[in-house]
């Protein structure tokens, strides 16, 4: 499968929409990443911190977004991955992952990437540079 190479500027990878965010998703990520900040798992702590309730780890969303590129590791790899965290992800939010090819050079594919919520607001946004093997 050599699909990334065939992509033209302005074209997108197929969006992926995640299941509604669950507490178990965040407990699993806390365990797997070692980030036990309680605002991601315990309601009382989140509220004490001035939040409306527990929120997802920004890195959970960033980790999810990278999977749009996972099928293409035979073609190349993610050389640069830059994200700005723009909004909170709350329980039951439905997150959609998107990547659009902005431009390409001989070896590098420059993507604009984002994860948006059910209201269409970007919660994280950034860029991926995918480096292709020759």
């Amino acid at each position, binding site marked *: 499968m050599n699909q990334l190479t065939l992509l033209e500027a302005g074209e997108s990878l197929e969006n992926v929409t995640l299941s509604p965010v669950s507490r178990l998703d965040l407990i699993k990520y806390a365990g797997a990443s070692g980030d036990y900040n309680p605002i991601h798992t315990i309601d009382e702590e989140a509220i004490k911190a001035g939040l409306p309730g527990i929120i997802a780890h920004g890195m*959970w969303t960033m980790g999810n977004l*990278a999977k749009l590129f996972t099928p293409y590791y035979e073609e190349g790899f993610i050389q640069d991955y830059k994200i700005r965290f723009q909004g909170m992800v709350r329980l039951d939010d439905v997150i959609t992952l998107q990547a659009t090819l902005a431009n390409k050079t001989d070896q590098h594919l420059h993507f604009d990437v984002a994860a948006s919520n059910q209201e269409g607001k970007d919660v994280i946004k950034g860029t991926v540079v995918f480096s292709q093997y020759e």
Partner: protein
Amino acid sequence: MLAHVIGKKSKPVKNVVERGAVKKFAESIGDLHPIFTCEETGKQSMYNNNIAPPTFPRVFDYGTIEELELPAKGLIHGEETFHYERPLIVGEEINCYAEVKDYYERKGKSGEMGFLLLKRYGEDLEGNLIFTEEQVVIITEAVRKEMMV
């Protein structure tokens, strides 16, 4: 407030890209692709092995930067950047360390905020760079006040 730690680094810590940790991490981001988890797929891939997802370096131990004491709560993660020379290979050993790249303060909507730029490094045992991770941590005025007490 933290300007005195700019340039300080931690002592490198040896880490292993553990197979079990990679699988658990891949599962936690809903990305149980065989390139990360299936030994046979790894062997037949161009890497001759399994690789780790790009945000996996969160798992590593980077050591402690002396004099950098941050509160466990109240920090805001503003930006995150990974740079790779190549993917991380399952089973390999890497040396990891962290550095305070910058610290500055700005007036914002909610008072004076601190911006801390941390950079983390992963190198192979010969000292060749594999990845860097840069993190912008925002320290709000409320948290800064607590830190100054």
